[in-house]
């Protein structure tokens, strides 16, 4: 296949930017914010895999795998937290959660 690495990276960066936008824009909804994070993480994975393929080293793929494991851990915890918070406050609006105020 003869796609230049830069194109892969551009796709990844667009994807990352959209994830970022999602996280920022949907501040009222934790679920959507989590989705944004997933998108960003996938963008990172795409970068890793692209790099791995480009240089022919397995490490990039390996890290995508690690990322996936990480993400699943993160998502399961985050969703558990959402459930917990929803149970306590009946909302998923992040602006209502401010107990971390400094």
């Amino acid at each position, binding site marked *: *296949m*003869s*796609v230049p*690495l*830069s*194109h*892969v*990276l*551009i796709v990844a*960066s*667009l994807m*990352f930017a*959209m*994830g*970022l*936008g*999602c996280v*920022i*824009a*949907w*501040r*009222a*909804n934790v*679920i*959507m914010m*989590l*989705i944004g994070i*997933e*998108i960003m993480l996938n963008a990172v*994975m*795409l970068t890793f*895999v692209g790099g*791995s*393929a*480009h240089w*022919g*080293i*397995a*490490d990039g*793929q*390996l890290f*995508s*795998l*690690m990322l*996936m*494991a*990480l*993400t*699943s*851990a993160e*998502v*399961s*915890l985050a*969703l*558990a937290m*959402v*459930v*917990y918070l929803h149970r306590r406050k009946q909302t*998923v*609006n992040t602006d209502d959660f401010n107990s971390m105020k400094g």
Partner: protein
Amino acid sequence: MEATLFYILAAVLLIGILLAITARQAVRSIVYLVTSFFALALMFYLLGAPLIAAFEVIIYAGAIMVLFLFVIMMLELESPEKLAKPNFKNWLPALLLAGAVVGALVVLLASRVQAVPPGFTEIPVRQFAFALFKQYGVAVEVVSMQLLFALVGALYLGRRR
């Protein structure tokens, strides 16, 4: 041929994500996302990572997204009126920052002259496995520990008082 396929898939991916993040309902956005991730999985395959592609489908599109769906349904968040939809004021900073990030990345990419000719090598699963379990054995252990902690944490948070 493969390159064309790649671009098509990329288009599907990006459009799917765009739809996902602008969807009115969380359930819809999940469905769009699943579509995009399928496309992404294919792109991984094209980039010579069949194993990752498989995992993408199984774990992401399969497990994680379903988990999202479960939670959405459990909390009965599917009706759009329950959620405050972002208006333009919310989107503005997001667009600005995302634009800045993309712009900067593109500038960076464009400024780097491609030293190596374009082209990808496929990495066989055997090599992948060797690297995973020989070189990064400790990392695998750490990740597994982490998954365990996440499990315990989720159980702790989810228990009924």
